[in-house]
């Protein structure tokens, strides 16, 4: 564990892998460190946003003193089923990068059980990890300026669904009609950390 300063409003904790991030995140949510106002988990780091006036050194000390046992991705017990039309623009590229056929890419994506590890990039954008290492592909070398809402994509070992139309550099597999971010709901984000996700191949009804 390495603790880095982010000015006087943040402490960035760097750990070995995602499992440790998730374990530390769960530990700090269950038993918060005084002065910490928000937690931002990511692939290798957990950012602790602190109140101005809180001593970052004290927060750093309190975190390193924690005995955290990394485990599997923590699950919320909730499973979300997302119907997807697999007609994404990057399906051929993903097939080529993984050495699979288009069909096999779709099968691997729908057979995997995905779990939301953390959110970021945009409100409601969940970074999902799965049990299909063959689907690991890098991002596109150039990001698209406009990725439609509902696009289902892959990059860097994660899968994700774009909550709204935005720029994006992930490889597009298909699209879902399910609204994954909706402020009219009590809990606007469908893909919260710990939620399990299964993708189902949907017929294009148009």
């Amino acid at each position, binding site marked *: 564990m390495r603790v880095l300063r982010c000015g006087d409003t943040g402490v960035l904790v760097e750990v070995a892998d995602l499992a440790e991030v998730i374990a530390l995140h769960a530990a700090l949510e269950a038993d918060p460190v005084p002065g910490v106002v*928000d937690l931002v988990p990511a692939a290798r780091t957990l950012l602790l946003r602190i109140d101005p006036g809180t001593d970052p050194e004290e927060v750093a000390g309190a975190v390193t003193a924690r005995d955290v046992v990394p485990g599997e991705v923590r699950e919320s017990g909730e499973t979300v089923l997302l119907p997807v039309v697999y007609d994404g623009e990057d399906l051929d590229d993903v097939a080529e990068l993984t050495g699979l056929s288009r069909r096999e890419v779709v099968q691997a994506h729908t057979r995997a059980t995905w779990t939301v590890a953390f959110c970021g990039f945009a409100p409601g954008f969940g970074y999902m990890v799965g049990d299909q290492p063959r689907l690991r592909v890098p991002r596109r070398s150039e990001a698209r300026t406009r990725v439609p809402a509902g696009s289902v994509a892959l990059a860097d070992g994660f899968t994700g669904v774009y909550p709204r139309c935005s720029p994006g550099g992930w490889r597009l597999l298909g699209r879902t009609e399910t609204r994954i971010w909706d402020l009219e709901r009590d809990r606007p984000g469908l893909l*919260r950390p710990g939620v399990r996700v299964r993708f189902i191949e949907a017929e294009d009804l148009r």
Partner: protein
Amino acid sequence: MRPSRRALEVVATGPLTTVQDEGRFGHAGLGVGRSGAADIRSYALVNRLLANPRGAAALETTLGGLRVRAHGPVTVAVTGAEVPLRIDGRGAATHTVLHLPDGAELTMGAPTTGLRSYLGVRGGVDVPPVLGSRSTDVLAGLGPDPPVPGTSLPVGPAPEGFPRVDHVPTTPVGGPKTTLRVVLGPREDWFTAEAVDTLLSGEYEVTPRTDRVGARLAGPVLERSRDGEMPSEGMVAGSLQVPPGGEPVLFLADHPVTGGYPVVAVVRAADLPKAAQAGPGTRVRFVL
């Protein structure tokens, strides 16, 4: 019959006017950033002047140009970047409690220095909060839509306390040059020692590509000491993120929650209001 609600009708917005408060807390885990007033000091001042409770929503303008009409009598004040004010054509002062009778029109000119001014109203701008805040996050597309001519902004009930002063003295914000204090890191080890010296000795200029998300700076390039991609990580306001081109971007209120380029240093929270008032052309120096 209840009297109709008091409101501010927007007549003109200038380049960008948004509703802002202290921002959103506790939703970073869902990918929702803090947002909130970019110059939190001037925003807090306008509420103190009006005896509003902390966190009452105000209007943040960028380069002035805002015109509002009072529906019902309202009490307002303007802080932040110094702007010429007129009420129905007659001159009025900033940093002063102003009473607008029903139908009166307040016109804000362009600031002489600085970038962002705050129009506060006694009772606060009472639009519905989203995830606990009335702030518009322009990057995430959260919060109230930015007002346009014709938008009617409801005014909340007046607080119990009354303004204790009519006017607050203040030091002007903005100017051709500014110095911002930084703390190095979290990723200064991604840069050469010369790059860190350059950051702390060179002069940067705020480019026209500046908004609530961040200010792109032009100046000496900061060389990396290592190649490769950094996994995305959480960011704070004030981060000096360095994209592959080597010129830093200074993150402001609506910065992305996570970012994929290394942050060489972070501006101290106390200096963020100054950073938010640095308009295009401002020359910036960074010191420890």
